[in-house]
């Protein structure tokens, strides 16, 4: 279960940003998780809650923004929601789709005092 390693990496970044910004108590961490990453949002939340117990992060909330797998049609430029990997542009029927979202694994922001 690599969600624990992912959590550790998130908290490392949070610790650094808290120091830089003079924050003592973390309230919220906002992250962006793409559909095509190997990260399960519920598992990540669980790991986060376990990892912050008894640490300076205790009480912080993890907010996850999930990003669907999306593409852009190379023929007509239209946006395509990719489901079950059937890549077909709903407008022109082309299968030449460029993947544009779904790979995200980012920290967006944090809140604290």
């Amino acid at each position: 279960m690599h969600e624990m390693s992912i959590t550790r990496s998130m908290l490392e970044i949070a610790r650094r940003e808290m120091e830089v910004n003079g924050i003592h108590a973390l309230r919220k961490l906002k992250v962006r998780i793409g559909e095509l990453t190997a990260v399960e949002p519920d598992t990540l939340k669980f790991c986060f809650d376990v990892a912050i117990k008894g640490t300076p992060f205790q009480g912080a909330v993890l907010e996850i923004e999930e990003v669907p797998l999306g593409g852009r049609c190379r023929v007509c430029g239209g946006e395509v929601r990719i489901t079950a990997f059937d890549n077909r542009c709903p407008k022109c029927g082309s299968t030449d789709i460029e993947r544009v979202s779904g790979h995200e694994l980012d920290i967006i922001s944090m809140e604290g005092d």
Partner: protein
Amino acid sequence: MHEILIEEKILARNDEIAAENRLALSSRGIYSVNLVSSPGAGKTSLIESMTQHLKDLAVSFAVVEGDLEGDFDAKRVESRGVPALQITTGRACHLDAHQICHSLPWVYGHEGLELLIIENVGNMVCPAEYDLGEDAMITIMSTAEGDDKPLKYPAIFSASELLVINKTDLAPYTDFDIKKARENALKVNPYLKIFETSCRTGDGIKEFAGYLAALTKSKMK
């Protein structure tokens, strides 16, 4: 209390180290691959089966083995006369760039090395997000699993350059449909180059080893 914008990749640190590994290996003319699969699909067997072919093609190679525990796989490879280093990850279900970084001095200790094969921990989920600095990720799926694996574990197939469908000798005894597996894999990743092998009969091994040798030789200058 206000919102502080961070906007950073969670695995930025791993990606940085991976980029350093890639640069360091490239500058020495070493081609590297990251072998991933579910436990037991045949990563170590494929390395064993390819050994003689790679030697015949005069490719000098070494293996870094990632496992949760033990050095069984490194011993298997070593017994074929191939240098192997075992990394045990403890509880981590994947190798990361930092562990590979620590293995590089060992790698460089082998004069004239051309190819580094990294066998990742047997796991189809976790290694997908961890760039090691390899030139190509190779997913192995076996006919003892399901031909719908690519649709169930899309992240790993999407991150790979090559796919090996192994244990083709067992296909007649299962309901695994090789054509269907290929279609599913290409749905997830249209750029995949696909090979079929059997480490039991040796079918397809020479072709795959030859392709790997060609990639290796094209990297060196």
